[in-house]
């Protein structure tokens, strides 16, 4: 086995993720990306509140974070020729994210075929022992023409 060399895909993926309008709008920050793994954080923001009484952010904001993080993981995979789209994403919400705290998603592309990438993701807040949510997803691998 050879050491994995940072691929062009990683750099391209980083540039691409950082340019996504919706990810910027929600305040996502790409922390790590390489070889089919990505870490993205998102600061607490009052605009994202889903339950006004508790101040807990909306599940839809957590979904966006995990979808983006999973997509980033796929794009950074050495086998992925750059472009991808979500086919299916299942999210399990274990508990509410603590109001006022940032959340972080970690996604890993655990299997890649010629046409599909399979990804798992976990979202944590400051209590890193108990996940806020987990997701499993499938993503397309576009090889172009």
């Amino acid at each position, binding site marked *: 086995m050879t050491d994995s060399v940072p691929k062009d895909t990683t750099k391209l993926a980083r540039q691409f993720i950082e*340019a*996504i*309008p*919706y*990810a910027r*709008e*929600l305040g996502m920050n790409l922390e790590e990306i390489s070889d089919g793994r990505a870490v993205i954080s998102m600061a607490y923001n*009052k*605009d*994202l*509140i*889903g*339950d*006004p009484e508790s101040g807990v*952010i*909306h*599940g*839809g*904001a957590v*979904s*966006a*974070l*995990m*979808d*983006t993080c999973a*997509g980033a993981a796929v794009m950074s995979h050495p086998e992925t020729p750059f472009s991808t*789209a*979500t*086919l*299916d*994403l*299942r*999210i*399990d*919400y274990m508990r*509410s994210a603590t109001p006022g705290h940032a959340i972080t998603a970690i996604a890993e592309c655990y299997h890649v075929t010629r046409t599909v990438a399979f990804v798992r993701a976990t979202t944590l807040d400051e209590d890193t022992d108990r996940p806020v949510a987990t997701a499993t997803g499938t993503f397309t691998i576009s090889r172009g023409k």
Partner: protein
Amino acid sequence: MMRKRPEPVQVIKQRRDAALSSLVSGVPFIRFLGVQIDRRGDELTAVLPYDDKLIGNPMLPALHGGATAAFLEITAIMELAWAGLWDDIEGADADVHNDDIPTPRMPKTIDFTVDYLRSGLPRDAYARAKVNRSGRRYASVHVEAWQDNRSRLFAQATGHFLMPSREPKG
């Protein structure tokens, strides 16, 4: 037996619209996405007006999968909360006037599975939810979203929700 005289249509409309707007306007994330909800009788249609900030792939361009998922989840939760409110304000034993609309109780998402059927175009999107099962504790909801053509869905989703506990009627 005397039947109760039906309320004037304006009174009913005003009460229903006030109940719906209290449901929608209280949630910052719905405002952030710009989702609006149309009502015809008790049927709701959620509308996601197109905005450049919703883009996930600037090269195509296509709506962000996360924006689509959020739109579907909002639609599902609003449908469930609305069904609960509807029973409170229009149900057989409801005795509600326009000035005392009950506070909506929000369901919590347990899981949500989104099926992306085609890429979301830079256009307005629409969604309708159907509550397939609503029990005392859990509910199962299916949502469909389309653009331009109702029979060509661009995404659909199914989710389970934890229903808020009902206070005993007193």
